[in-house]
Structures are given as C-alpha cells and as structure tokens.
C-alpha cells in the first residue's frame, strides 16, 4: 500500500526488502552499523544520518562497519561482487571518492569487459552529494558527471522517494556496478511510496511535468527546483516541460529529444559545476541531434566554477534557484509566451 514516507526511509526500506529477499546482499561502509561492538539498538546508529538504521540487528553479520579506509573497502566490495555477493557499500560523501578511483574506474568498471563477460560486478556504491547543509567544500559537491564519464558504470541520481526506492532495488539487482547518488537535502522530503518492492528501469527519464513551450532538463534536487520555477512561469503563461533524467548512465536521450522537438527550447539545470558536466553534455547532444528544432540558444543553469562555499549566504547563491531557472527560461522565450511564440 502506498503511503507517504521520507526519501531516507524509502532508501532504508529498499535495503531492508532486498536483504530479506536475497541473502547475498550485504552492506558495508563507515558507520553503517555504527557503534559496532557495543550491544543494543541504541548504539547501532545506522550511518551518520541514520539511513541504514535497524538493519544491523535485523540481518546479523550482514551489516559491517569498516575502517576509515575507502580504497580498502571499495576494493573489498569489488572483490565480494566478483565472488558471488551483492555488496551495497556506503561511501559517506561523494567528495571522498577520489581516494578509491582505481578500484572503481580500473577494477569495478572494467572487469566484465576485460574478462569477456565472464566476470560480473553486481555492486552498488551509495553516496551523499550536494550542497545546502553548510558542510563546506569537501562535503558538498555533485560529482556524478565524473562517474557518468566512465563506461562500465551505471549512475542513478533520484529526485523523489518513489524513485529512490525503485532505482535502488533495480541497482541492487543489476549485475553491473552502480553509483547511487543520494542528495542529503532531499533525505527529509516526503512522497508516496508503495510498501511492496518494485523496480524502475535505468535509462528511463521521468516527465515530472508536461508542457509545450520550454523543455527544462534537471537532475536530483534540481527537479523540484525546476518544478517550482515552472509553477511560477505558468502564472505568466509559459508552459514548461520538466524532464527528470533519473539516471545519467545510461542516459535517456530519446525523451530529451522528443521534448525539445515539441518545445524548440531547452534549459538544463544542474547543481554541478559547469565545465564538462551533465549540463554541457545534454546541451551538446541536443545541439547535435535537434539543431533544426531549436528556436533559441540552449541555456545552462549550474553552480559557478568554484568550490562550494561554507558561508551560508554564499552557499545559497551557489546552488541554482527557482528564480535563476525562471530567468533562463525567459531568455529562451525572449519574453514571448505561449506555444508557437
């Protein structure tokens, strides 16, 4: 039965249901049990923000705290996946991922290819991303484009509790390595989620809103921001279509092209930095494949090319806002409104 739960609870439920369904699913990472070695539920905090809470006692021996040694436990996850388990490793903040790139880029992403399909790496790495909680430059980045760049990895960036549960279950059942991005600001956002297990296929964008005038492609937390901008613009007679990519690898190019063919205008919203990011990639794909349909230059709304600032007032300016999105949309319409304008 569908009921309203938080994004964080949806992720916990996906882990719980897959661990119940498949004994080969194991969790590990820094503090995913929390207080391991001490007895009692109170000590098993379940991750720094409590996302894995309740699983340590429910699945004895399958929720493992690791040392603060990312390359070691991500390497262990690759090895465990190759040898028959379905590990879900938590790498607390995506900002820390750099220390284990060899395990991810050269091992996890390559083994299936280099062994001619005879090896599988059914591994998920869960990680927090995004600015907005005053956690400064080393805990606030949006690095999904780096992983999207590497063939052999799949990348999910859910924007709603419903998508978070369905995409995480699909990720765990997938035989390829998946990097699963959880926006820390979205953790408390609530939405309707079925109690039952379900999957959402990778490579299928979601039309978060239908519209005829301007296509707004967005990712993760920016989907809600784009919807907010679309509401404001609707009052002015500008009808936006909001495309939520949901997974950046594989990428649902067709849905983007079909929307742009309808609207002739594109705004890409990405919380990441602008150079070599998803926004630039989508803009290039559309320029190459839908140039004839475009009626205005593509607009990109991204963070600036700076590290995420710690200072609250600066951080608020760093993250794209509904106002900036609306402004970019108005640039594509040149102030004119209505389909065919």
């Amino acid at each position, binding site marked *: *039965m*569908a*009921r309203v739960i938080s994004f964080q609870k949806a992720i916990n439920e996906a882990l719980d249901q897959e661990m119940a369904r498949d004994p080969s699913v194991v969790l590990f990472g820094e503090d995913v049990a929390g207080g391991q070695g001490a007895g009692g539920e109170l000590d098993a905090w379940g991750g720094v923000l409590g996302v894995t809470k309740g699983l340590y006692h429910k699945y004895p021996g399958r929720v493992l705290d690791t040392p603060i040694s990312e390359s070691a436990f991500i390497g262990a996850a690759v090895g465990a996946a190759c040898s028959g388990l379905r590990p879900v490793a938590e790498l607390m903040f995506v900002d820390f991922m750099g220390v284990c790139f060899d395990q991810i880029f050269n091992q996890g992403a390559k083994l299936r290819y280099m062994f001619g399909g005879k090896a599988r790496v059914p591994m998920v790495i869960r990680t927090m991303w995004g600015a907005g909680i005053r956690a400064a430059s080393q805990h606030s980045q949006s690095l999904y484009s780096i992983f999207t760049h590497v063939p052999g990895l799949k990348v999910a960036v859910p924007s709603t509790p*419903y998508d978070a549960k*369905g995409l995480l279950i699909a990720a765990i059942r997938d035989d390829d390595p998946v990097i699963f991005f959880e926006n820390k600001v979205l953790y408390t956002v609530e939405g309707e989620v*079925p109690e*039952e*297990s*379900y*999957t*959402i*296929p990778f490579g*299928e964008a979601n*039309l978060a809103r*239908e519209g005829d005038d301007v296509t707004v492609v967005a990712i993760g937390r920016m989907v809600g921001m784009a919807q907010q901008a679309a509401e404001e613009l609707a009052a002015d007679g500008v009808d936006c279509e909001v495309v939520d990519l949901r997974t950046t690898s594989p990428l649902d190019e067709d849905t983007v092209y079909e929307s742009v063919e309808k609207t002739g205008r594109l705004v890409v919203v990405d919380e990441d930095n602008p150079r070599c990011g998803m926004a630039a990639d989508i803009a290039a794909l559309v320029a190459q494949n839908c140039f004839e349909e475009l009626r205005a230059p593509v607009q990109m709304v991204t963070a600036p090319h700076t590290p995420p600032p710690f200072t609250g007032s600066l951080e608020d300016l760093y993250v794209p806002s509904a106002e900036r999105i609306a402004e970019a949309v108005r640039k594509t319409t040149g102030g004119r409104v209505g389909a065919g304008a």
Partner: protein
Amino acid sequence: MTAGEAPAGVTRLGMPKWGLSMREGKVVDWLVAEGDEVAEGTELFEVETEKMDGAVESPAAGVLRRRVAEVGAVVPVGGLVGVLADPSVPDADVDAFVAAFQASFVPEEAAGEAETPTRVAEVGGRRLRYLERAPDDPAGDPVVLVHGFGGDLNNWLFNTEKLAERRRVYALDLPGHGESSKDVGAGDLAAFAAALGGFLDAVDAARAHLVGHSMGGAIALTYALEQPDRVASLTLIAPAGLGEDINPDYIDGFVTAERRRELKGVLELLFADQSHVSRALVDDVLRYKRLDGVDAALRQVSAAMYPSGHQTTVLAGDLDRLTVPVLAVWGSQDRVLPAAQAEPLRARGRVEVLADTGHSPHMEAANEVNRLLGGFLDDLEEQPR
C-alpha cells in the same frame, strides 16, 4: 466538513471525490449559465482531476443561482462549486448560504480526515485490498464492483460515490492486481470466482449485486452460475467470457509494455476518445506493472484465459442456466471486446449499447452507466421476488 447545511429549496453543488487520491479538482468548464433552469441529471460543469476529466450532473431540478467557482478555479473535495435553488428562494438567502458555507468549510485533508481509505481482507491466504462506502442507512444488498484485467478498484472512481449514496458498495482489487497479493493461482475464471466468493464471505455479504467490467464481468458471471443464491443481480460492463474473440493487441500489449510510450498506445484501446489517456493514468498503470510479482501474475492470467487472441472460456452457452437478473452495458466503439458479443445476453436481460463509447463505459460514459445501474437496482427492489 459538514459546513453550513443547505436551507430548504437550496442545493449545494460540491466538488466530487473521484478516486482515492483526489484532494481537489479544477473547474475546466461550466455547461450551464447562472439563471438557467436545469433538470436532475443535467451536466453542470466539467472537472479536471489528476487522472481523468468528468462532467458533474445536477443532483436535483432547479435553477443555477450561483457559480461560486469560476472556470480555472481549483476547489478542494467537498468545496462549494455552485448553488442550485428553487426560483422562490430569495437571492439574499442564497448569498447567506454561500457565505456561511465558505466561512465554516474545512477541506478533508486539512481536517485530518484523510485516513487510510481502503482495507484489507484475508482470503485463502491472500490479502485483498478493498474500498467500502455506504450511506447511514443502506438499501438492500451491497454492490460489489469487480475490475478487469490489469485494472484495480480505482477504475470505479466515477461510480463508487454515486452508488454509495443509496447502497453499501465494495470495490476490490482482484488477486494479482492493484495492491492485493500478487499470487493468482491458476489465474483462470474458476480461481478468480473462488477469490470473489471468499471476498463476499470475508465482508459477511450473504448476497450481493455483482458489477463486473471486462474480465471482471466473466468472473462475476462465473460466480453467478456457480452460486446463484448469493447473487442478487449481475451487471456486466463490456464483459469477457461471451465470445471467442478478444483483441490480442490489448492483452499482449498490456503484458509486454515496459515503457510509458508503449503502454500509452495500449491503454488508448480502452477508450473511444483517446484523450482520456492522461500521463497520470499511464503512470499509475506503469507503477503497478513494476511491482514485484505483477509481471508473472499478468502472464499467468493471460496464458490461462487469453492465449493468442482468443478466450479459453466462453460462457454464452451457459446463459440459459442463469437465474439472476442481468443488465449488460457495452460501448459501440469497443476495440477490445466487440459489442456484437452482447447478442447472446439479449434473451436473458437488458442490453444497452452506448454510442461513442469504448471498452470502459463506466469511465468514459460514467453518468450514463451510473444512471442505468442505479435504475436497474432500484427496479429490482420494487419488484417482489
């Protein structure tokens, strides 16, 4: 909730509740002007919901005195859309009613009354979700609504509340469907009829009026043939089970469609007017299809009942054994089950074929179906048995 009872001669025109998730609706068109005289059943205004648009009929005869919500207004369920009154009622009284209602109206959601609207019955080891609606003093036997292949209790969104003005109404999710357990057993008519019987037991319904759509019609018919004493009447809406033909593009397409685009084309086969297939409608079905166990359930049912474009069980030859009163409603533009399959029913009961209507008359011609069904049930109660 029960803000401002209407004084004598005044009828409140409220925003209807069409479906479990409806909290508000948008008035997209007014079909009558202020000052127009309307009969009971006249279509007054059109409402857009997340799922489908529909026309609201006048609950009484009178004059439309106020359009409280203009076109484009979004009104919460139960909120005031307009006021109908006898011409003798002074304007001041109408205005006083509007003012009093608006001052005291609290939307359901805000009032914290959005409780879990469905329940679960345990039937043969399965969990069956159902919706129950009843007035304070329900008339006669309860009505049980049985959806079709791939459907669920929300398919009756335009019918449940209307029927429940007079009677106790149950709408259930069959095994493998909606939010019920996904185990369908053999997935044939006997298995579903047994589940329906188990459901009647679970809700203590010794006898019921059965209303079935498509596959649900064949299930209701099967049950009525097996247990005539427990069936007060049978209403078959574009029922399966009466002829061999069934459109394989619908059945196979529904089973295999994995993406929104494919599924939209399949769902369009359900309606004469394809604009009814909204994004929300497609999304709901897609979400259902992605639940664990649904794919296997649908494949089992389609293999057991509808392999390669024909129906395995045709009950037309058994109709002379049928002892219960029958009403059949078909759409003339049905692209899943041809309306010609209604022919064998003509000797057994009343058959209504609705023009410009597809395979889902209870959605596409909801007001007409509600009127036919309500009249059929009312007539049965007036007749001595």
